[in-house]
């Protein structure tokens, strides 16, 4: 390990490390609140007493919160230091990387990719918790026609917030925790290319979450997560919270995307040619590669909306020379690639673990890569299939139908790869592998229903109905979230040093998957029968279908709570994991648990790909510790005190 070095680097004087060492999430929140109050007071003083005043004040207050928060967490220390001609000493850098700080490093602007990965994991879980609770409220309101549980305004606001929270959560759920923690290990690197940008991208999302949730106190949003103008022009100040969240999130994604791409392009271990790069890496890079052109469109759409709302611009207002179709195009130019940003890393993670749990090489690696690339390229050419009924360009409907239906070809390639990997394998049905099977079922349904929607006449009947809602939940949740949970079960031992409790993992798995299918099959049914989307009440004829969906939703909620329990309890006192419990051949499993700060003592040199199952001699591996072997070692549980079964390995 390197010795602590307080010598200034390259003759540059040391930056004052004192302030940096005192900053954490509490100072960030404090800084944000203080600057927000100042901004609010000043803005109110100068605010014009017209229609735009409240929105101007809201936007200024939120910008001040975000800047204050980032200052309070220490994001500007580096740039301000550079302006003063100073940089970090290596002792400062080790401090920033979280060396010897224990649990406190998780509450700071820590640059170690493993810490950022864990922070992303916790953030994702919080977002799913809040978004999931909202889903429970939505389904409770729909348990019967005219339930009178929520007012229409509350319902619309919750639907919109649920949507945006889940979109953000699903975008970061694989590339955040695993793209950060696992990816550098998997390519044999010591960290990401830009460690400080890594921490920046995470903390920006943390700063954005209170902004999004503040919409509840600002009148909510009436538009759903798609924020269509000109309804968004009419909306109360909650809409400003919505657009600020997106602007911040878009910047965070761009930063993370640049970081991940550069890391993979330049920091792979010696000998890791593209042919020897694991498929998960391709998935992560494709995802951020799509995000980089797509999210700026989203940001642009919201900036223009902000100008409409605060300055009286007329970008989306036809009577002022603008067009609502401008919003729809900007939104969907993001909105379609975005679903593949969500989906591709989840399926890539499943491809990765399927090879391990079938003890076989990935079937046709080149087809897998071609599938990922094909989906990515086509996904930027299909956006107006969301606009078939908008009347914007009816003559282009056929062209968009062509490109959309063509996406089923590279998607089918990914199915081929997974089925071919399973074919004649030795299937080890542990929890991670079960997610692959759930994904196969859910994604084939999601994909086929997408084919229906891509057909223009059918879309004229089904657009804007609950059928669409069910379709995208089958793909984003049934395939995406399922893949992320599989990735969590797979990489949990490496990230936490403990095995994820499989008993409650399986209880959760079955509750969630069965509940999920009940909920959204019911939703396909009511959609075909004519229920529109985003309605807080509906025709009596649809009562049974909605009731069934609500019951399924409650099952999902309980299942996810069991998963939460499994994650909590395993993290704190689960069985200690060996460094390679699954017998996988990728590089991250060659480092010990817990993973040392600098990952590898000696950077590895790669001479083959990670799929040599059946080609290299089989090395029996011990696998995860069995629960009953470890009972005597559990502290605090009422285990058999006098069991003599095996000592801890």
């Amino acid at each position, binding site marked *: 390990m390197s010795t602590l070095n307080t010598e200034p680097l390259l003759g540059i004087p040391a930056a004052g490390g004192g302030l940096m060492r005192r900053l954490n999430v509490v100072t960030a929140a404090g800084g944000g609140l203080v600057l927000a109050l100042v901004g609010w007071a000043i803005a109110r003083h100068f605010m014009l007493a017209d229609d735009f005043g409240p929105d101007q004040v809201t936007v200024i207050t939120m910008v001040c919160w975000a800047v204050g928060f980032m200052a309070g967490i220490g994001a500007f220390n580096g740039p301000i230091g550079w302006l003063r001609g100073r940089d970090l000493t290596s002792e400062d850098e080790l401090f920033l990387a979280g060396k010897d700080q224990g649990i406190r490093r998780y509450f700071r602007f820590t640059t170690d990719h493993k810490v950022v990965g864990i922070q992303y994991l916790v953030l994702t879980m919080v977002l799913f918790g809040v978004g999931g609770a909202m889903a429970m409220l939505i389904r409770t309101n729909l348990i019967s026609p005219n339930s009178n549980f929520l007012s*229409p305004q509350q319902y619309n606001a919750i639907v919109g917030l649920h949507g945006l929270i889940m979109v953000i959560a699903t975008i970061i759920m694989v590339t955040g925790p695993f793209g950060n923690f696992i990816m550098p290990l998997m390519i044999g690197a010591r960290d990401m290319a830009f460690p400080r940008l890594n921490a920046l991208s995470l903390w920006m999302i943390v700063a954005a979450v209170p902004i999004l949730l503040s919409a509840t106190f600002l009148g909510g949003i009436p538009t759903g997560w798609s924020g269509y103008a000109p309804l968004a022009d009419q909306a109360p100040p909650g809409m400003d919270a919505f657009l600020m969240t997106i602007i911040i999130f878009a910047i965070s994604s761009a930063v993370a995307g640049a970081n991940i791409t550069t890391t993979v392009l330049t920091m792979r271990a010696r000998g890791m040619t593209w042919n020897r790069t694991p498929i998960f890496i391709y998935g992560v890079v494709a995802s951020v590669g799509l995000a980089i052109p797509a999210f700026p469109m989203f940001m642009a759409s919201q900036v223009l909306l902000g100008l409409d709302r605060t300055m009286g611009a007329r970008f989306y207002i036809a009577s002022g020379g603008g067009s*609502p179709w401008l919003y729809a195009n900007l939104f969907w130019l993001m909105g379609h690639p975005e679903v593949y940003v969500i989906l591709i890393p989840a399926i890539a993670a499943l491809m990765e673990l399927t090879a391990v749990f079938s003890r076989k090489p990935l*079937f046709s690696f080149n087809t897998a890569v071609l599938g990922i690339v094909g989906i990515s390229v086509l996904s930027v050419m299909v956006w107006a299939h969301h606009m078939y009924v908008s009347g914007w360009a009816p003559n282009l409907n056929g062209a968009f139908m062509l490109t959309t239906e063509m996406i089923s070809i590279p998607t*089918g390639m990914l199915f081929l790869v997974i089925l071919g990997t399973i074919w004649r394998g*030795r299937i080890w049905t542990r929890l991670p592998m079960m997610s692959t099977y759930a994904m196969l079922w859910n994604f*084939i349904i999601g994909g086929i229903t997408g084919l229906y929607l891509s057909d223009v006449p059918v879309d004229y009947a089904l657009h804007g109905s609950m059928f669409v809602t069910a379709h995208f939940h089958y793909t984003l949740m049934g395939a995406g979230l399922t893949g992320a949970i599989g990735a969590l079960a797979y990489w949990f031992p490496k990230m936490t040093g403990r095995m994820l409790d499989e008993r409650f993992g399986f209880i959760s798995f079955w509750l969630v998957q069965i509940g999920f299918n009940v909920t959204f099959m019911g939703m396909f049914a009511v959609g075909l029968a004519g229920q529109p989307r985003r309605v807080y009440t509906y025709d009596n004829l649809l009562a049974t279908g909605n009731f069934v969906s609500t019951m399924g939703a409650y099952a999902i909620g309980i299942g996810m709570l069991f998963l939460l329990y499994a994650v909590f309890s395993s993290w704190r006192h689960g069985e200690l994991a060996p460094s390679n419990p699954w017998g996988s051949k990728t590089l991250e499993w060659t480092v010990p648990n817990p993973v040392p700060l600098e990952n590898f003592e000696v950077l590895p040199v790669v001479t083959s790909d990670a799929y040599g199952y059946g080609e290299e001699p089989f090395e029996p591996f011990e696998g995860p510790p069995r629960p009953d072997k470890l009972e005597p070692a559990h502290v605090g549980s009422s285990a058999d005190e006098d069991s003599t079964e095996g000592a801890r390995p």
Partner: protein
Amino acid sequence: MSETEPVTVQIRTWWQRVEIKRIVWTWLGLTVLLTIFALTVPTRLMGPPASPTMRAVESTMTVFSVAASAVMALVLAIAVYSLIGWRSRGSEPPIGDGPPIRGNGRVTVAWIAVSTGLTMFALIWGLGEMQSLSADASTPNAMVVNVTGQQWVWTFSYPQNGNVESEQLYLPVNRPVVFHVTSKDVIHSFWVVQMGIKIDANPGEVTKTGVVPDRLGTFDVRCAELCGLLHAHMETQAHVVSSSNFAAWITAQERRAS
């Protein structure tokens, strides 16, 4: 599989593998079940169609579902068999690796070819449907109905019938009608559910859609684009009546207005 044997021998050897036989039978059985589902469930849920447009929609749903049955059945057959025939029993790690199958050129090419073929089929089917429906919608003597969406009510006017206005939509059966749709405020979406037509109502623009209602009855007109507080209540009814009843209704509306 030896490359030197004739194809028929290769196929026979391939078929004699236990797993192939079982997977193929499972695949056939699942295809039958899913096809029965495809032929019955979607149309039953969508209900009796009230126009040729909706009839085309329902037949497309059925045809695509039947085609998809075989695909879904294949995925499920392989997945299910893998859990029975290739499973490493117990929670202990497997005691060996599987065969080092890096790929299979024939299977890959066949898979891609079939998926391309199915995609082309769906595309050609869809383009054909679009062609025939647009021919329907642009008949020269179609009746024009102006549809105005606003938060949160639909109103209709009949420019060719004395500019009669109403919040309920009355249409004569078997007569082509073209809707000129616009909005007074935000984006709405004019959806006549059982006729299978939908077009957005945009402020400052007029969009058009056409249909031939060919069944008498009362049908649902709903808004399909979230438009604010009472979007769920932005519903009215479409009454398809005989031509004489329609004429009588027009006369009664004109009388009421004067």
